[in-house]
């Protein structure tokens, strides 16, 4: 088993899994039917991507484990998603800010992953890129609508951006597995995406008449399995059935 490749895939897929779960929590609770459908749609896209990644990871693992085992039977410390995606849905502005800050990264990342020497990863990236372009379009629109909307929506969006800003830098950290995969031409060197990321994010924030946060202090740890206190609760809910009735057909 190629341990680095396995870890690398989890590093990509866990982001989509956790963010998909967060969006799924909102089903039926969005401000309008239309946003409800859109967020559920994005969630479905993300889960679709996760399945492709985890099926591939299960194949690489080469033992009996399945995509479900990888999703449902790991503990908090074994999840390697970035902290950004596990942040809770505080309000709609917060949900959209989290989505936007991740989507910009996600699209840049997949554009590079398409060039991977690993053809399976390149193919998944190629399929996902269309979905993520749509996600980014949706979240960008909402950043602008709320930022440049009423006084209240602007204040909420600014607050969301300010609170989530501290989780953005982690997107460009590399784990040991990441570094090895970059050297082998399989992984994406995320450090080079940073400049384009902040340029894009800042341009949208400016258009939305929002302030670009000045804070230079950033939170990290998700990629090493050191999470915020939110992830444990999320996993408890996500994994309950599998933990209560393991090894069942469903």
């Amino acid at each position: 088993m190629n341990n680095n490749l396995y870890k690398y895939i989890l590093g990509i897929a866990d982001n989509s899994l956790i963010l998909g779960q967060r969006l799924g929590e909102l089903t039926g609770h969005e401000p309008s039917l239309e946003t409800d459908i859109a967020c559920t749609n994005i969630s479905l896209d993300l889960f679709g991507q996760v399945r492709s990644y985890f099926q591939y990871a299960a194949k690489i693992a080469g033992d009996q484990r399945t995509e479900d085992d990888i999703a449902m039977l790991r503990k908090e410390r074994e999840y390697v998603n970035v902290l950004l995606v596990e942040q809770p849905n505080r309000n709609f502005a917060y949900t959209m800010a989290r989505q936007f800050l991740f989507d910009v990264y996600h699209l840049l990342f997949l554009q590079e992953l398409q060039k991977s020497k690993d053809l399976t990863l390149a193919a998944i990236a190629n399929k996902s890129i269309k979905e993520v372009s749509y996600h980014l379009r949706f979240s960008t629109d909402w950043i602008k609508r709320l930022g440049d909307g009423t006084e209240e929506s602007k204040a909420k969006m600014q607050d969301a951006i300010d609170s989530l800003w501290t989780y953005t830098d982690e997107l460009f950290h590399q784990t040991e597995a990441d570094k090895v995969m970059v050297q082998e031409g399989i992984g994406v060197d995320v450090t080079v995406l940073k400049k384009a990321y902040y340029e894009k994010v800042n341009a949208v924030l400016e258009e939305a008449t929002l302030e670009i946060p000045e804070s230079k202090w950033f939170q990290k740890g998700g990629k090493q399995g050191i999470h915020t206190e939110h992830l444990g609760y999320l996993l408890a809910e996500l994994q309950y059935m599998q933990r209560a009735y393991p090894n069942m057909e469903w």
Partner: protein
Amino acid sequence: MSNKKNWPLWEVFVRSKNGLEHRHCGSLHAADEEMALENARDVYTRRSEGVSIWVVESKHITASNPEHNGELFEPAQDKVYRHPTFYDLPDEVKHM
């Protein structure tokens, strides 16, 4: 939330990948035309590729009045000479 005031009704017309014309497939509420397009794509096309979507704010559509059906539509029915059915259509001409 004042959805009803700010989110007008839109009519959605979709032409499917192999379809010849746009067909009316439903309506939805949205704040502006961009949002209406996005929602229509989610709700009515499942984001299939190669489809075309038109959205029209409902207030821009003028409909015929059912009370006037008699004068609008009936006169043609019993006048066969008004219908172009007295010649054969070549096979090459499709979709007539």
